[in-house]
């Protein structure tokens, strides 16, 4: 990193963005929304925050694209596969009623 001052400003900007998003999340938590809407909003905001952390703090944006392509799609695929159990949790809820 040749211009470290510039880099530091970038990090502080990302930090402020993360803090603002966190405040938005906390404010959202006290709105009377349905659980589903709340969950969707909170998870999207969190995914965005995670993206900021990975891209800038963990520096992935400045690595070669091949590293991103190796790590991220496989991770998303594995996480998506875990959602396969949710129909079963709904079935369990029906059985308990």
């Amino acid at each position, binding site marked *: 990193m040749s211009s470290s001052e510039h880099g530091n400003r970038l990090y*502080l900007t990302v930090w402020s963005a993360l803090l603002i998003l966190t405040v938005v999340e*906390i404010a959202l938590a006290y709105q009377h929304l349905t659980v589903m809407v709340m969950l969707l909003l909170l998870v999207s905001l969190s995914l965005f925050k995670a993206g900021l952390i990975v891209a800038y703090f*963990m520096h992935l944006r400045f690595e070669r694209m091949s590293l991103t392509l190796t*790590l991220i799609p496989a991770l998303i695929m594995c996480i998506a596969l875990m959602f396969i*159990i949710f129909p079963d949790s709904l079935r369990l809820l029906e059985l308990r009623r």
Partner: protein
Amino acid sequence: MSEAVRETGISAWAGGGGSPFSISSNKLGMWLFLVSDSLTFTALLIAYSYVRVASEVWPRPFESFSIIMASVMTFCLLSSSVTMVLAVAAAKRKALGQTTLWLGATILGGLIFIVLHANEWMELIHHGVTPFANPWGVPLFGATFFTLTGLHMTHVTVGVIYLGVIAWGFSKGKFSSDDVEISGLYWHFVDLVWMFIFPMVYLLSNAL
């Protein structure tokens, strides 16, 4: 030929060659560990969501005081991530004193997090919320909550020790700035995981 590919390394799809990722093997190792660790945390978060969806009642034990404390903890972790990147930047500049200072600030953020979190656990246990029982008769709440936050707290504790070792070794000249950067990857990951635990466990279970 291969030297040229390594130097220019244009295509994202180019495999083989000298160094397809242009990073040290230590750093690639840490990335691979973090990917597998994120799957562990995903599994626990999904286990938590699974039992929550499957339960007719789910406790919402977090009063506004708990939410404020959890927000302060979030602030500590986010800020310790910033001090961590500043430590890495200082390490790259070979500024030894500054590196130690920022690493110390990062460790302090982690320690405050651990103390506040342990305090919150004690509060919950005091109110009868344990891994196997709680006043609302939904034992799965405690089981999943303590497993998930416990594993995260373990990661923070390990991270604090890891950063302590790195700070000591870097000031002694045993570790390079690359080692500081790799420890930073781990620390940011711990922060990242909390960015999911905080909304999904705390904010979605606040006492409205």
